Each structure stands twice: as structure tokens, then as C-alpha cells.
């Protein structure tokens, strides 16, 4: 029993690490499955970075669409990333986290466009911000925000070209 209290800190650390690794990994795989599925579903919604509509003369309704997500890394990833800073190089643990966040934000933006009955988004911008507290106090978290202008199809039936 005494040994338990002596090594309590170490035990807690190992438990958190295991929880982070196990559940974090499971979450990530589930999230990637859901992302891939929704990406297939929303493949018909086109998103471009261009600033001008392809046909500026045709009247079309446009609406600002947005998608955002705040993600945090798990305990295991933070630990691995902490070790990684000692030797430098690719932080694969954080790469996948931000990849997920960016794709999720993009998907939410596309879903927003679908809600407005549009299937074309122009001038897409993606920005990411650190919204957590960083080292002390807060929770390390990143926000990814995607926005663009969705163009609704022209109101009158398209003329045969």
C-alpha cells in the first residue's frame, strides 16, 4: 500500500499516457473514418480559392459560408511532442491533428453551403489560431476556421449552350 502512495505520481502519469494513447488513437481512427465518408458524400460541392466567379455577368445569389472546429491533442501526443522538441524534426503527432481539424472545418463549410442550396464555394480561406492557454493554465487547443462565398445556382433555368 505504501508503495502505491510513493509511486502515485508515476502511476498517474502512466495511466494518463495509456488513456491518451488508447482512447486518443481510437478517437482519431473514428474521426478519420467519418471524415473520409463525409468527404465522399460532399464531393459534389466544389471549393476553389479563386477570387472571381467564372461568369460575373449572370446574376447569382451568394452567401458567406463558414466552418470551424477546435481540437486539442491528447496526453500521449503532448508527451511525444515534448520529447520530439529535444531532437527536432517532424512532429507527426501534431501533423495528423491539424490535418483532421482542417478537413473537418472544410467539411463543415461545405455542409453549410449545402444547407443554403449551393454547390460551389469560391475564395476559400483557411486560418488557424492557437486558442488554448499554451503552457500554463489553459488547454493547448487549435482552432481551424474555413470560410468562403457560396454561389447559388442561377434562378432561371440555364439556357442550352
Amino acid at each position, binding site marked *: 500500500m505504501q508503495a502505491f502512495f510513493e509511486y502515485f505520481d508515476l502511476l498517474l502519469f502512466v495511466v*494518463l499516457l495509456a*488513456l*491518451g494513447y488508447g*482512447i*486518443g488513437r481510437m*478517437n*482519431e481512427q473514428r*474521426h478519420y473514418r467519418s471524415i473520409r465518408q463525409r468527404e465522399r458524400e460532399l464531393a459534389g460541392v466544389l471549393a476553389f480559392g479563386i*477570387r*472571381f*466567379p467564372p*461568369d*460575373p*455577368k*449572370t*446574376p*447569382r445569389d*451568394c*452567401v*458567406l*459560408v*463558414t466552418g*470551424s*472546429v*477546435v*481540437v*486539442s*491533442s*491528447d*496526453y500521449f*501526443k503532448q508527451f511525444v511532442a515534448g520529447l520530439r522538441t529535444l531532437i527536432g524534426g517532424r512532429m507527426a503527432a501534431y501533423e495528423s*491533428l491539424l490535418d483532421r481539424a482542417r478537413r*473537418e472545418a472544410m467539411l463543415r463549410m461545405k455542409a453549410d453551403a449545402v444547407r443554403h442550396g449551393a454547390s460551389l464555394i*469560391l*475564395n476559400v*480561406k483557411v*486560418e488557424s*489560431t*492557437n*486558442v*488554448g*492557454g*499554451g503552457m*500554463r*493554465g*489553459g*488547454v*493547448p*487547443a487549435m*482552432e481551424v*476556421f474555413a*470560410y*468562403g*462565398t457560396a*454561389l447559388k445556382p442561377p434562378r432561371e433555368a440555364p439556357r442550352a449552350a
Partner: protein
Amino acid sequence: MAGSSNILVSNLELVPGRRVKTHLGVVQGSTVRAKHAGKDILAGLKNIVGGELTAYTELMQEAREEAVGRMLAQAASVGANAVLNVRFATTSITAGAAEILAYGTAVVLE
């Protein structure tokens, strides 16, 4: 996100098929938001296993709507019926607080 207001919001520089009659200059709206401690503690727990922090996502969304709302109020006060080339900027000010700024060009469309 435009809400109940009938001002058109877009981050393109023109609206297809409509001509800009008058430019009224830059309008902007901003807000600074902090998370409340309870949510922060929950997020701290969530942080062990990682993933989306839904409470924060909602918070940022609300903040962004507020910023856009303020920008639209300013646009309405100068008599615009559209805000074009809208951009967003987010800055984290201190641990747990973020400023969200929305700005764009107020115009009168024909």
C-alpha cells in the same frame, strides 16, 4: 451566419450580375471572448484523450456571429446593402481569451 439582417455578406470582390453603385469604405466589428472556468476544466479533462472541444467550437462560433453582427450594424448605419471582401482575423490575447475581428467593404449594390 448573416443572421436576420438583409445585408448581403460575401468575401468575393463583386456580386455576380450586380453592379456596385457606391463604395462606403471599410466597416468592421470585433469582440473579445473568454471561456468560463467550468468549461475550461471540462476541456482540461477532454485534453487527456484529445479530440474536438465542442464547447470551444461553439464559443468561437458565437463570437464570430457577434463580430459579423457588429460589422453589419455598422454597414447598416452608413446605408450599405452589402459588405464585400469580408475577412476574419483571430488573435489570442491572453491564455483563454481571443479577439475575433470581421471587416469588409460596405457598398451599395444596384
